[in-house]
C-alpha cells in the first residue's frame, strides 16, 4: 500500500513537471527575444510636472509636442534634431510625446533612438487634456505636431501648429538668443 502511494505520488509529480514543460518552449522563445532596452529613457509626466519643466532656466526653451502615430511629427523630427545640434548650449530643447503610456519603453524610445535625438524626452499623460492645451496657446486646438518657443524669461514668443517652417523657426530663435551667440 505504501509502495503504491509512493508510486502514485511519483507519477503525480512527473505529470506536474510535464505540465510545466509544455509551457517551456514558449517561455524559452520569449527569453530568446527579450524586449529591446533603449538607452533613451522617456520620463512620464502629468501636466503639473510638465509645466514645471517648461519654465526656462536661463536660456530660451523650445518644446515640441509629437507622437509616433503622427505622420508629420515623424517627418519633421530629423529637422528638429538638427536644430538641437545647431543651437546646443544656446537654447534648451525638450520633446513631449502624446503617445499612450504603454509605449513609453517601446515605440517612443525606439523612434527617438533611430532619430539620434538628444533632447530630453517626456511623455505627457494629462488628467485634463483640454485645459492643458488651452493653457499653452489660446488658439491651439490640439493638432500636432506643435512647437512652442519661450524666451529665457518664460514668455511664449512663437508657436506653430503643424510642421515647423525652418526659416521662420531660425528667425524666431535668433530673436531670443543673445546677439553674441545667435546663429548667422
Amino acid at each position, binding site marked *: 500500500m505504501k509502495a503504491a502511494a509512493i508510486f502514485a505520488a511519483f507519477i503525480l509529480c512527473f505529470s506536474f513537471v510535464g505540465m510545466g514543460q509544455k509551457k517551456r518552449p514558449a517561455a524559452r522563445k520569449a527569453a530568446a527575444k527579450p524586449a529591446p532596452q533603449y538607452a533613451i529613457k522617456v520620463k512620464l509626466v502629468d501636466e503639473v510636472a510638465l509645466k514645471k519643466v517648461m519654465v526656462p532656466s536661463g536660456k530660451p526653451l523650445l518644446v515640441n509636442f509629437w507622437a509616433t502615430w503622427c505622420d508629420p511629427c515623424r517627418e519633421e523630427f530629423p529637422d528638429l534634431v538638427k536644430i538641437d545640434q545647431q543651437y546646443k548650449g544656446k537654447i534648451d530643447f525638450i520633446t513631449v510625446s502624446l503617445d499612450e503610456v504603454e509605449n513609453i519603453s517601446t515605440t517612443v524610445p525606439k523612434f527617438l533612438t533611430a532619430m539620434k535625438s538628444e533632447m530630453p524626452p517626456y511623455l505627457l499623460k494629462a488628467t485634463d487634456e483640454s485645459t492643458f492645451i488651452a493653457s499653452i496657446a489660446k*488658439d491651439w*486646438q*490640439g493638432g500636432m505636431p506643435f512647437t512652442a518657443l519661450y524666451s529665457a524669461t518664460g514668455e511664449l514668443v512663437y508657436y506653430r*501648429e503643424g510642421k515647423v517652417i525652418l526659416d521662420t523657426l531660425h528667425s524666431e530663435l535668433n530673436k531670443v538668443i543673445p546677439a553674441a551667440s545667435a546663429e548667422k
Partner: protein
Amino acid sequence: MKILLSSLTAVIALAAVFASVSILSQPTPAFASGGLEIGATAENFSLPDVDGKTQTLNSLKGKNGTLVVWLSAQCPVVKGYKDRINEIAAEYQAKGINFVGINSNSTEDLNWVKSNIAEFGYKFPVLIDKGNVLADKWGATVTPEVYYFNAKNVLLYHGAIDNDRSGRNVTEGYLKAAFTESLGGKAVSKAKANAFGCSIKRVGE
C-alpha cells in the same frame, strides 16, 4: 487694518493686470486662427460631396441642428474615433441632428477619401473642402474636430468629441453632453474643449 486691505487690493489688481497681459501678449499664431466663436451664426456654405454633387449647410441641416466633423483618412486619431462617431451619429441623427463630415486635407485625394468612407462606415455625407477654405473660415485645425449648431446655425459647441483618444477611459463625453443639454432645452455648459489630434494638412504646407 485699512493699510493691509488696501495693500491686498493693490496686489490682487496687479496680479489681474499681469494675468491679462500674459494672455494678450501671446504671439500671433502661425496658422489660421480666429474662426467661428461660440454663439456665432454660421453662414451657409456650398461644398461638393465625394460624388461631385454640391451640398449646402442649409440643405443638410437637421430639424434639431447639425454636427459638422472634420475628418481625415490617414489620421490614426480619427480611426480611433470612427466607431464612436458612427455610434453618436446613429443615436443623434435619429433625434434630428444631422451629421456632416468635412475633409480639408490637401494630402488626401478623392479616391482615398471615398474608400475611407466605405472602410470606416460613415452613414453621413462627407464634403471636400478643397484649398481648406471652410477650415480657414471657421478656424478648424485638427482632426477630429466638431462644430455643433442648433437649427438656426448658431454654434453651441466646438472642439473634441470626448476626453480620451483611446476610448478606454472616457470620463467626459463633451459632445454627447452638449447634445443632451441642448435637446433638453438647456444651455450647453461646456461649449469648448480641446484634445490632441492630427493637424489638418493645409495647402502649401
